[in-house]
């Protein structure tokens, strides 16, 4: 199914903006929209979307997750692709919806069909659209954190780097432990906030040691976690979603006011 999409001149993409971007950082949503359009997609943003259900699913509340998953499936079935600016939410839809409906053949089939055409934004742009940003300038050094779900569930690793490589003036610096979890883990960061704090403490030290101006990543949850810790520790590192940089919309970093 997704393979036919490869050939599509102008695919219809349903942008699943994710609940965090929707509520906390709309700029990432606008950046995703701009990038997808620049990559030749017709983008629609279904207004009925809320959340993929991951917080409930990872809390073990399968029954509470199912209505949310069904709603996402129904809402995004009509599109050629579902694209989300988050490896974690895309991973939820791609890897876990089919598991969620393991005992429900009808919904399982629909979940699998949607899973097949669901993509994380940066890998979608790089792999399926062959996109590279043009004339985007960002004079800065940056460290890149590989968020876990994108990295391990979806294999997002080279794509964001390839895209960022095309940004003029941007220099990527190595980050010690770039593939190590930042300690966010969704509800984990609230339920076990002390353990989460210890983990993000180590991450923040590594980010500071990298000595880059910017910290970039592909998942807002992790970025908020790291940005919040860096800010509390008094670090100067500015934190952006990679899409914001790629779209040339990296004006105000997370936590910076107008």
């Amino acid at each position, binding site marked *: 199914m997704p393979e036919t999409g490869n050939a599509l001149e102008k695919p219809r993409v349903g942008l699943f903006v994710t609940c965090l971007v929707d509520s*906390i950082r709309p700029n990432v949503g606008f950046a995703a929209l701009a990038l997808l359009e620049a990559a030749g997609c017709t983008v629609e943003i279904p207004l009925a979307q809320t959340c993929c259900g991951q917080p409930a699913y990872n809390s073990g509340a399968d029954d509470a997750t199912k209505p949310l998953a069904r709603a996402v499936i129904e809402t995004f079935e009509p599109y050629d692709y579902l694209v989300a600016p988050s490896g974690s939410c895309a991973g939820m839809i791609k890897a876990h919806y089919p598991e969620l409906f393991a005992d429900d053949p009808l919904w399982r089939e629909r979940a699998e069909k949607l899973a097949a055409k669901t993509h994380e934004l940066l890998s979608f742009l790089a792999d399926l659209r062959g996109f590279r940003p043009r004339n985007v300038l960002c004079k800065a050094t940056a460290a890149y954190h590989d968020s876990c779900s994108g990295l391990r569930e979806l294999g997002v690793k080279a794509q964001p780097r390839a895209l960022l490589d095309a940004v003029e003036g941007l220099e990527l610096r190595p980050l010690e432990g770039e593939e190590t979890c930042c300690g966010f883990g969704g509800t984990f960061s609230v339920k076990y906030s002390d353990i989460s704090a210890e983990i993000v403490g180590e991450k923040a030290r590594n980010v500071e040691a990298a000595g880059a101006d910017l910290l970039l990543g592909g998942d807002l949850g992790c970025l908020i976690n790291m940005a919040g810790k860096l800010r509390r520790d008094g670090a100067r590192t500015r934190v952006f979603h990679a899409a914001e940089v790629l779209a040339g919309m990296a004006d105000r970093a997370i936590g910076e006011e107008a």
Partner: protein
Amino acid sequence: MTAPAQDFHTRVEKALRDPQLKIALERTTGNARRKRAAAVAAWPDFEAARAAACAIKDHAIEHMATYLEMFENNARASGAQVHWARDAGEASRIVIDLCKASGAKVVTRSKSMLGEEIGLPHALAEAGLRRVETDLAEHIIQLAGETPSHIIWPAAHRTREDVAKLFDQYHHEKPEGHDVVSMVASARKELRADFFTAEVGISGANFLVAETGAICTITNEGNAELTTTPPRVHIVTAGIEKIVASTEHALQLTRLLVRSATGADLTQYTTFHCGPKRAGDRDGPEEFHIVLVDHGRTRMLAEMPEMLRCLRCGACLNHCVVYRAIGGHAYGGAYPGPMGSVLTPVFDGLEQSRDLPAACTLNGQCKQVCPVDIPLPTLLRHWRARSFRAGHEPKAVSLAITIWAFFAARPRLYRMAQAAALPALRLFAKGGWISSLPLGSGWTATRDFPKPPRQSFLAAIRKGATR
């Protein structure tokens, strides 16, 4: 294992307050991670090897009854006595009875996590037997009166400085220096005599080889052979999932097990024991007993068979951000880290260990490094779902999730609540950040939270905004 009295949160708090712990853990697990990475890099097809290792274990699990029977017959033919235990209590009792029957006063042990799992140290003490732990790390924690905090490095929570203090205090002859080599030499001297006074030596097993009836142990200090060869009686305790088809399969798995654990190609000693002393042998035990333990494994066979693949290599611990933050004791079970969080609910019951599967970011690094590709995050989530269904989760948490899901399933209501919440939250912000979040005080105790926007992305889109 009886669960420690304190609850998980208390143990975590204690661990996080201990700066020495963090240093010790980082030295051991950091070394382990680096060495494993180098070993894996030298095996270009490592991913395919993991899949092959997985298939070898799955094969044994699929034919478990056949292979266990074959093992038992071959072991008996070699002169070994095979005992079966359904649970921890039964297993300990069998071992204690064997010790008593042999008139033992001193028992040497070489490291075995199964022994910890079935509470053997405690049972031996209750039976009035002097227990001598001969593995260096087990010796250290025996002196300190502790339990293991890592399945490969039981004393991973102790720095070399801690060990020096313990040896200075307890060894008959103090170590000549406080460098690692002198301390190892000191332990060698301290334990030498006990190897020859013990009447019984107890070990574990890494594999039970069906084809030969031998048990395989993988060790590096030489203490294991000195524990199992001189005493008159050798008792092996092993979980039934250790069964493999053949010597070849055992060795093939060992290649991955050792690389994943310490980064070596093989440990110093890969040993196969098959029965007691034979005619003409100058050494070896006169009695050889194998205690095969179920303790939840047949239940796992039905419910989470993947976990029976576990080789106990410890890689998932070394690569776990939570383990590295809190150490092994905070988990409260015999096995810590990701694999422990899957196993402890099997052994100790889900209700009292529900925190373990929950206290995980599900980042998946454990699965990535596991030599037999156990889907640890999936299994942990499986426990969460069970716990939620059984009503073990704290009421406030399940209520919050239920209410949130109720709104999220109703976009209109969700929008309305969101439209009210965002401006309200903004009131807590100062200079773009919230430093004390209502209902999220745990988060903001150590980090800030960005000030949310006036309106959500979707609200802006509805109004026709483009950026």
